[in-house]
């Protein structure tokens, strides 16, 4: 019992010192929030998620079919701007030629120029293109159905094309009910990234400095053993990671409506992940003797792990080979578990594998950090 009290006392003291540093809040709270806002806004309003894909149509048609065809293109999610000449600025442009109606009425095939700017959103272009294909299919369908006679009179009256087959989309049962916002993606990613970075930097540097300044050696004059000291250092860094996650999740909940699914399970994921990072920070702090090297290593590792683990961009766009490599990143498993909770309202069984992997990693890193933990230079 006394041992536990001593360990807790040192760990709490470490946490108090770290929290007492004013810049700590910049790094653990202010800066991650800036990241959350920027990436949240980019996810939401950027090229990635256009609410409406814009299409400029240059209608040069001399007859009535041009306007008729444009009507077929105008569907939800597409904003059509019709002009009489090709503008200098556009993202996607469809040219309806002057003889459009004449060719249709003569049943002569034609190719419509569809121009896409190379630097414009590929996703919006894909949406516009599929809608154009649908418009073509509808128009040709109507012609096949109702156009055996004189096509010049076709537009004067004919039954509408019926969408007999419709597509309905939904999310899996018992998951989300609304489309997740950009913040639902950016908050877990940023939290994981900054836990890695800050626990490694702060935790590593303080272990190194305590050793170099002889603080660790002096603490052994107390009834503490080296093992207790190691556990206390590990615990202090683990608490720091937890505290940071709690603050960021609270901010996410209050200001950005973050829904983590099961909060206790999300905290379990963070707890196991933070333990692995705490062990890594003690390990780095025990091996390295220069502050700059610890900072550099922490930034390098945190960025690689975050990039591979899906903290910055959705894993869906990552090539399959890179997704395979990503499994070496602790962030990958943490993000996988958080996604299960956030997007799929998963339970303990759903996160068992990623949490198990993280727990195994934490155990290995703790064992390695314990072996390499040094009291003196």
């Amino acid at each position: 019992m006394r041992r536990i009290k001593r360990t807790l006392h040192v760990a709490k003291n470490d946490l108090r010192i770290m929290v007492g540093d004013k810049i700590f809040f910049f790094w653990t709270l202010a800066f991650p929030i800036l990241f959350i806002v920027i990436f949240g806004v980019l996810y939401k309003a950027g090229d990635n998620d256009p609410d409406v894909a814009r299409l400029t149509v240059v209608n040069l048609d001399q007859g009535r079919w041009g306007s008729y065809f444009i009507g077929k293109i105008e569907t939800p999610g597409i904003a059509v701007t019709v002009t009489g000449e090709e503008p200098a600025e556009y993202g996607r442009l469809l040219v309806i030629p002057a003889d459009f109606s004449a060719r249709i009425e003569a049943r002569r095939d034609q190719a419509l120029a569809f121009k896409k700017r190379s630097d414009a959103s590929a996703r919006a272009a894909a949406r516009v293109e599929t809608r154009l294909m649908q418009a073509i299919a509808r128009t040709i369908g109507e012609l096949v159905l109702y156009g055996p006679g004189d096509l010049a009179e076709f537009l004067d009256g004919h039954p509408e094309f019926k969408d007999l087959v419709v597509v309905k989309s939904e999310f899996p049962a018992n998951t989300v009910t609304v489309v997740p916002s950009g913040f639902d993606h950016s908050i877990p990613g940023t939290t994981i990234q900054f836990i890695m970075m800050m626990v490694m930097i702060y935790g590593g540097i303080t272990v190194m400095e305590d050793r170099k300044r002889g603080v660790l050696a002096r603490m052994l004059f107390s009834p503490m053993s080296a093992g207790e000291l190691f556990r206390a250092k590990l615990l202090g860094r683990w608490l720091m990671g937890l505290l940071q996650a709690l603050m960021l999740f609270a901010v996410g909940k209050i200001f950005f409506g973050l829904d983590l699914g099961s909060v206790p399970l999300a905290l379990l994921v963070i707890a196991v992940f933070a333990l692995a990072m705490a062990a890594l920070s003690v390990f780095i702090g025990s091996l390295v003797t220069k502050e700059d090297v610890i900072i550099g290593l922490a930034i390098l590792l945190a960025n690689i792990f975050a990039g591979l683990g899906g903290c910055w961009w959705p894993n869906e766009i990552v090539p399959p080979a890179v997704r395979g490599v990503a499994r070496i990143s602790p962030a990958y498993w943490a993000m996988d578990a958080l996604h299960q909770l956030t997007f799929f309202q998963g339970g303990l069984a759903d996160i068992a594998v990623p949490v198990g992997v993280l727990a195994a990693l934490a155990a290995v890193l703790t064992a390695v950090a314990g072996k390499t933990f040094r009291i003196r230079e």
Partner: protein
Amino acid sequence: MRRSAHILLNDVRRHVKAPWAILIFIAIPLVMTGLIGVIFAPRTEGSELPPIAVLLVDNDKGLAAKLLVSSFDVDQMKEMFQTTVTDEADGRKRMAKGKASALVVIPEGFTLDLLEARPVTLLVVKNPAEQFLPDIVEEFMATMAVMLSGVVQAFAEEVRGIRAMIDGPIDRIPWETLGPEFGKAQKKIAAAAKYLDPLLLRLKEEETQAAGARPRITASHLFSEILPGMAIMFLLFIVQTLMRDLLSDREDGKLRRMMTTPLRPIELIGARIAGGWIMGLAVLLIMVAFGALVFRATVGPFGTFLLLAVAAAFWTAAFFALFHALVRNRNQAGAVAAPVILAFSIFGGSMINVEAMPKAFRLIGILTPNRWYIDSAALVRDGRFPLVGLIVLVASGLLFLALAVPALRRRISV
């Protein structure tokens, strides 16, 4: 001058002897460039995204359902979609774990309903954790739905006739009466062929460029675009680390000892700023050389690029000279420098593409060296001379230098 050169050489030697921090900081931008480049580099033509995992559930097993399922087997679609045919329970279980981008469910009675020209609904269950790929599946299915609707309406009458005839037991099918129905269908097919072969309306796709826009990026273009942003960000980190000697010498008492020699403060200041400048330049060139070798990143005409690198390294050295003259101690320097550098990097376009930023962020970016360096590097790559960028970097660098030197002299004299 000799004394300054001596200090400078000594500093270089010292940092070369303990290179780990600098090597790691050099490695970071290269690793980041590699990672981002590998993920976002354009892949095979026509397929900018990885294959989309789609689960197909055919609860109907009829002809129309088979046609729909086989539409995923067309060569172009095979590249785009990675389909797995499964049953609904398994499909939904997998979707509940996010194991595919989308699940397409063809309902029971799909073919029969279509034959009866009754409305039918195809269900697309989308992965909520994904933002792009499920939408592509939905759009594809919507296109298929339009096509099927057209076909069904075109042949509804004939199909209804045939169905009525074949609904009974096979030995009672009036085979002789099927002939006229097939005949009608044949006539319709012949009529439809006028619109379908060749297709009456097609799209002729063309990729265009706005005036002044850069050509479509290749993998090496992408690396060339990412590297300058990363390089300037970590140049700032590295020069800040190198120039921290201005403070540590004072805190360690080395400065006082140095000042007992005939060394004049201005010589020491000059050596330290020149050291930051020269070592910063060397680091920048190493990053660029490595980027060129490994990622085939290009910099444009080397002479012009060198000029830009000299200006960027000078700005960085002058800025951190002033910075270290203003902060109280090493701890404060460490605590303030990193946020400043990261703010420069976020707003200046090292971390996020400037074009993707909100307008306000872009405006703030003008105040950062990252933005000027990144924009100028892009101009150099395009073979243009980055006059404005160079003027801004050199002029603001000179201003920082003019402010830093007297401030540092005061600190050294204390």
